[in-house]
């Protein structure tokens, strides 16, 4: 049923090339989920999130020192290997230092016409961040208009925002189905659904979601749900890992990933009578990346609430090796979840994950969660 999403995920580059041909426009590669896709889309361009390919590579060592996260190196490798040669523009919204380097090295060593660094505020908790970010959006729009030679009207921005909202609403509907004791959606299906949503045109994605939702509601999977797990951490599109977890007696029910719920959880509210301020508020108010979650820790209650709403048995906390933002949250977060009755398993991810050692840890965790069966 999720065939289309898997195909988009597997053949993302072909899709992008076709899109360019069909719309005779351009694709903008987005580093980080804080890039305001609505604006890029309103400019008639296709925003596409840049991800890695989970294969060993030997091209990034001259550009990024080994102490930075494998994801940022894997992403850069895609550019250096020419996998995205069709991509004319790139944009990063400021988040962590790691990914920032993929962006600057990409700008220097991969041919692109247009590269924009958007200083998304780190302190989203100050009231001053809102007007500031609106100002940054104005600046970004001006530069996009100069590049494309086309004006971006407020009308186009509003339509784009509505289209993105619809996509978020539809994906929420799918997520709601996962609250069921025997969810009709597996974790790997849900993951690929969300990931593909930032690889393709939201129009196509919405259409596909509308097509499958009715069937999905009446769908029953012939598999044991097993332990209901939540997965929390940084970027994660490691479908191999998710499949492994779901093959040893568990189902991933929900997540807190920037490639998952953090990407689509909240909508743009049209309440300022000012579309740019509305958009700015949306990105300020979205579930925070740990690098922006201060002075107050707002992530923890959010994650806890989600674990309760989705009736979770245990939480897998994954971390990209060397990811400082998450390393700065994890010990306190797992303590917090334990105190609130949710056992956690910590796993460290690399570009490629050796499944053997991971499997032992996951199975042992499941045995730990499982009822008295063995006693």
């Amino acid at each position, binding site marked *: 049923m999720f065939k289309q999403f898997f195909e988009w995920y597997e053949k993302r580059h072909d899709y992008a090339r076709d899109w360019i041909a069909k719309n005779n426009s351009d694709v903008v590669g987005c580093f980080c989920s804080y890039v305001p896709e609505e604006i890029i889309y309103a400019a008639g361009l296709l925003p596409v999130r840049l991800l890695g390919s989970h*294969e*060993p*590579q*030997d*091209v*990034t*060592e*001259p550009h990024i020192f*080994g102490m930075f996260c494998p994801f940022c190196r894997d992403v850069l490798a895609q550019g250096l290997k020419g996998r995205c040669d069709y991509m004319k523009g790139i944009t990063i919204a400021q988040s962590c230092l790691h990914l920032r380097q993929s962006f600057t090295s990409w700008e220097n060593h991969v041919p692109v016409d247009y590269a924009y660094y958007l200083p998304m505020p780190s302190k989203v908790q100050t009231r001053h961040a809102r007007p500031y970010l609106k100002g940054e959006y104005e600046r970004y729009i001006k530069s996009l208009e100069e590049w494309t030679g086309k004006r971006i009207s407020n009308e186009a921005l509003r339509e784009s925002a509505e289209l993105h909202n619809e996509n978020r609403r539809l994906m929420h509907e799918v997520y709601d189905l996962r609250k069921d004791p025997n969810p009709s959606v597996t974790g790997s299906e849900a993951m690929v659904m969300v990931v593909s949503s930032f690889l393709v045109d939201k129009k196509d994605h919405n259409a596909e979601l509308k097509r499958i939702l009715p069937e999905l509601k009446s769908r029953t999977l012939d598999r044991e749900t097993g332990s209901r797990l939540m997965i929390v951490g940084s970027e994660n599109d490691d479908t191999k890992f998710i499949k492994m977890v779901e093959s040893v007696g568990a189902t991933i029910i929900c997540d807190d990933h920037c490639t998952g719920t953090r990407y689509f959880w909240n909508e743009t509210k049209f309440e300022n009578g000012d579309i740019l301020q509305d958009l700015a508020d949306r990105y300020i108010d979205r579930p925070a990346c740990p690098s922006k979650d201060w002075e107050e820790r707002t992530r923890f209650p959010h994650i806890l609430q989600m674990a309760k709403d989705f009736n979770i048995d245990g939480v897998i906390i994954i971390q990209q090796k060397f990811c400082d933002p998450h390393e700065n949250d994890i010990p306190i977060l797992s303590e917090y979840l334990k105190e609130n009755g949710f056992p956690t398993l910590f796993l460290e991810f*690399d570009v*490629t*994950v*050796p*499944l*053997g*050692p991971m499997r032992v840890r996951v199975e042992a965790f499941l045995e730990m969660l499982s009822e008295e069966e063995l006693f």
Partner: protein
Amino acid sequence: MITAGIDMGAKFIKVLLLKDGEIMAKAQEMAGFEPVEAAEKAFSKALSESRLSKEDVNAIFATGAGRKAAPFAQDSITEVGAAARGVTHSHPSVRTIIEVGAEEGRAVKCNEQGKVEDFAINEKCAAGAGSFTEAMSRALEVPLDEFGRISLTSSKSIPMNAQCAVFAESEVVSLVHAKTPKADIARAVHDAIASRIVSMVRRVGINNDVALIGGVSYNPGFVDSLNRGLETTVIIPENAEYTGALGAAIVAAERNKND
């Protein structure tokens, strides 16, 4: 003029005698726990091979990890410098030298005089080094020399996930359980090491010609993987393992001319 180069390597001690740019004799000994004795032994071996006495040798330079402890030596040069001089002596067209030892991989960028322009050494974690292959061949229960050869017969590339030699060992074992042909596993191992080496070489740039020295240059499987990774064919100087000693002997000759 006759000069000698002593390469105080971690595993082997090599001695080379040079007369006006021509190699007269070479000898090597296991370093063991008494490298100085080993060096003396290798030295006298080389002398007797060329029917010389120590007095006939005008200058002796050392190199290698233990160079500071080398006997008889007036002075020493680093492995990096020695490699560059040694290789360009026979192959002046070489601009990039790759040396893979038991625990360290090195890449050197040099000009035609063998002057080092840039170099890179692999940082911590020895996954990129020779001892990795040893561990793997043990895990596969295939003798080291055969290990290299069989990997040539494979055309399949399997990515190795583990970076650590010990973890890779278990990955190899699980490949065996998955009934993967040993040839394919051997290639996977060599590809993994090669890719670690290649990414280090990229730091100094891959400029032709590229030469490979060090023990692994005798491992055809590794050489094949490396060539694929570099997208070029590496030159392997004859007696590649004596390159360091040769470089030291050359510098010894030069410095003696000067004073």
